[in-house]
C-alpha cells in the first residue's frame, strides 16, 4: 500500500497558483525527492502533506486515510525544517523527547528510545548538551533524530542541508541515506539541489511552476528527460533550434547547419510535422575536432571557436561560440587533444545521443 497518495493537489495563494494538479504515490521505505527551482511549489506540497497549508482542492492520503482537514499534530508525519527549528530552550534529549512526550510515552521508554536514536544518528552521549553548543552538522542530526524517534509513516525534509558547506553536505547526504536504509522509514525530501536529489533518492519528482514534469529514478530522468525543462534542470544541456525536414511515427529528420540527421523520436509526429524543434545534447556527449568530418546522416556538426577553457580537476570544460548557440563541452581529459582559447573547432555529436523537445527551451 502506498504510504502517501497525492491526487489532483492544487493550491492557490490569491491569484497565484502554487501547485497545479500534482499526482504521485510514495511507497513504503522509499526515499523520494521533490526537486524543482525555487518557486516551483515543492515546499508548498510538503507543507500540505505536513498539514501547515490546506490545499485548495485535491486529496492527500497517508496510510490510506484522507488527511486533508486534519491538523498537523493529528498526522503521522514528522518534518525536518529548513532552519531545523530545534527548541533552543531545551537540551538535545528534551528536543528529541518532545514528540514522545506529546504522545504520552512514559519516561523510561522515552529515555530508552532517545538513547537508541542518538546512537543511530551518531550522537551518543550528547543528550544533555544545549542546542547552541552543537555544530551545524550535529544540529542537523538532532533535528533528524527528533523526527525519527517518533517512527512516523513518513519523514518530511524541507531542504535542511541547504545551509551546510559542500563537504559537510555530501557527508550528511550519505549519512541520511544510510539512516534511511537502517530504519526503513519513508523519506520525502524537498530540494532545489539536483545533485543532492540525484545522489540520495530512489525516485525524484521534478516540479516546474507548480506542475509535476516527470517522476522517475535519477537515471531515468537524466537519460530520458521528457521535457526541455527537465533536461536542463537535471544536468547541463546544449540545445539548438533545428528545422524539421520530415517526421514519422518513430523518428524525425532535422536539418542543422546544412546537414540532415535522422533522430529517434517516438510519438513526436503530428504535433510537429513541420516547422522547427529543439535538439538537445549533454555536454559530455559533444566532441570537439579540428577537422570537419563527413556527415553520413548521423552526426551533427557546427563550426565555432573556443571562447573559454575551464580546468575543473576531473575534467576540462570548454565554451564554444558558434553561429547558433554557445556550446558547453566537457572533455574527460582522456583525449590528448587540448584546445586553447581562440582555436577554431568543429562541434560534433551523434544524432542518436540527442534529445528532441517541441516545447522550446528557455
Amino acid at each position, binding site marked *: 500500500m502506498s504510504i502517501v497518495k497525492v491526487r489532483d493537489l492544487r493550491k492557490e495563494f490569491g491569484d497565484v497558483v502554487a501547485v497545479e494538479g500534482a499526482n504521485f504515490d510514495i511507497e513504503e521505505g522509499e526515499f523520494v525527492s521533490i526537486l524543482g527551482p525555487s518557486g516551483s511549489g515543492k515546499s508548498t506540497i510538503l507543507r500540505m502533506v505536513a498539514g*501547515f497549508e490546506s490545499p485548495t482542492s485535491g486529496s492527500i492520503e497517508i496510510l490510506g486515510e484522507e488527511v486533508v482537514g486534519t491538523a498537523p499534530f493529528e498526522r503521522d508525519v*514528522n518534518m525536518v525544517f529548513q532552519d531545523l527549528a530545534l527548541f533552543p*530552550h531545551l*537540551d538535545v534529549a528534551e528536543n528529541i523527547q518532545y514528540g514522545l512526550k506529546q504522545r504520552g510515552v512514559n519516561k523510561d521508554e522515552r529515555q530508552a528510545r532517545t538513547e537508541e536514536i542518538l546512537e543511530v544518528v551518531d550522537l551518543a552521549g550528547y543528550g544533555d548538551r544545549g542546542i547552541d553548543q552543537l555544530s551545524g552538522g550535529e544540529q542537523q542530526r538532532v533535528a533528524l533524530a527528533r523526527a525519527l524517534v517518533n517512527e512516523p509513516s513518513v519523514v518530511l525534509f524541507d531542504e535542511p542541508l541547504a545551509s551546510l558547506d559542500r563537504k559537510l553536505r555530501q557527508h550528511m547526504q550519505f549519512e541520511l541515506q544510510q539512516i534511511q536504509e537502517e530504519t526503513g522509514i519513508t523519506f520525502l525530501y524537498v530540494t532545489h539541489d539536483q545533485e543532492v536529489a540525484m545522489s540520495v533518492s530512489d525516485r525524484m519528482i521534478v516540479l516546474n511552476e507548480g506542475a509535476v514534469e516527470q517522476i522517475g529514478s535519477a537515471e531515468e530522468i537524466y537519460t530520458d528527460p521528457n521535457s526541455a525543462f527537465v533536461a536542463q534542470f537535471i544536468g547541463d544541456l546544449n540545445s539548438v533550434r533545428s528545422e524539421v525536414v520530415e517526421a514519422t511515427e518513430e523518428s524525425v529528420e532535422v536539418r542543422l547547419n546544412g546537414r540532415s540527421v535522422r533522430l529517434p523520436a517516438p510519438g513526436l509526429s503530428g504535433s510537429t510535422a513541420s516547422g522547427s524543434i529543439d535538439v538537445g545534447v549533454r555536454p559530455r556527449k559533444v566532441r570537439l575536432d579540428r577537422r570537419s568530418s563527413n556527415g553520413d546522416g548521423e552526426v551533427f556538426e557546427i563550426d565555432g571557436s573556443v571562447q573559454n577553457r575551464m580546468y575543473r580537476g576531473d575534467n576540462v570544460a570548454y565554451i564554444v561560440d558558434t553561429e547558433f548557440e554557445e556550446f558547453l563541452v566537457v572533455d574527460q581529459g582522456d583525449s590528448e587533444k587540448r584546445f586553447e582559447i581562440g582555436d577554431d573547432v568543429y562541434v560534433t555529436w551523434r544524432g542518436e545521443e540527442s534529445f528532441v523537445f517541441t516545447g522550446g527551451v528557455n
Partner: protein
Amino acid sequence: MSTGTLGSRFDGYSRSVVDYLRDRPRLRVLLLAGPTAGLLIAFFVVPLFIMVWYAFMTGLPPADYTLENFLRIFEPLYLSIILDTLLLAVATTVLVVAFGYLLAYSMVRFSRKTTLLLLLVILPFWTNYIVRMYAWINILQADGLLNWVLNSAGVIEGSQRFMFSHEAVLVGLVYVWLPLAVLPFYASIKTMDEDLIEAAKDLGAGPLKAFFTVTLPMTKNGIYAGLILVAVPAFGAFVTPALLGGTGSVMIGMVIDNQFNQAFNWNFGAALGVFLSLVVVASIMVAALAGVEEKILKRPGGE
C-alpha cells in the same frame, strides 16, 4: 580666499587633535564616557547619597545621627500601608502581564495592522499622565460615565461609589503601565521563530500545549523585562493612588510624598525611600539569582 586658509588651518588643528587622541586611549574613553558618567553622578548618585544621609539624621543638617527613622517604618500603621502597596503592586503586575501578553500576542499573531495597533498602544503616552488620571476620575466618579452606563444597562440602581478604593487605584495603575509592558512582550513574541511553533505542532502538540511548552518559555525574557518595568514603578506609585484612591487607598509612595511636602519630615521620608529601594533591589536580586541557579542546576542532569 581667506575662508580657504581658515578651513585648511582648521583641518590642520583637527588633524593634530585626532593624532593627539590616537595615542591616548584612556583620554579617549574619558571624553566619550565622561559626560554621561558626570550626569549620572550629579543627578543620581549624589542625590541618592544625600537621601541616605538624611535618613540617618534627626533633622536637616547640621543634626544628630539616629536610627529612629528606620525603626518608625516598622510601626503597624506603616507596615500595613507597605503591605497594601505590595498587594496592589502585585495585583497590578499580574493583570498587566496577563492583559499585556494577550494583547501583544494577538497583535503579532492574529493581526495584519500590527504597526497601527502598536501605535495605538503607545498613543496614551503622548498625553499627560495627570490628564489621563483625570479622565479616569471622570469615568469613575459618582455621576461619571461608568455609573451612567451601568445604570442605563440596568446593572445597578442609583449612583455607586467607585472612586477612592483599592479597585480604582488598581484600574488606574493597570491602565498606566499596560503600554510599557506591551512593548517588551511584543518584541519578544515578534522575534521568536514561528517555525518553532510549527515544529511543536508537527511533533504532536496541540495549540495550547505548543504555547505553554514553546512560546511561553521562549518569550520569558520579554516577560521578565515587562514584569520589572511594571512592578517597580507600581510599587512606588503616588500620583495615581493620590488621585484615584485618596484616603481610601493609601500607598507608600503617597506617604513619602507627604513626609517631604506636607509633614516636612524629610528624614523619615528619606528613610522610607531608602527602605523601599532596598526592598526592590533585594527582590530583583533574589529573582535573578533564582533564575541563574535554575539554569546552572538544570544543565548537567537534563530532566
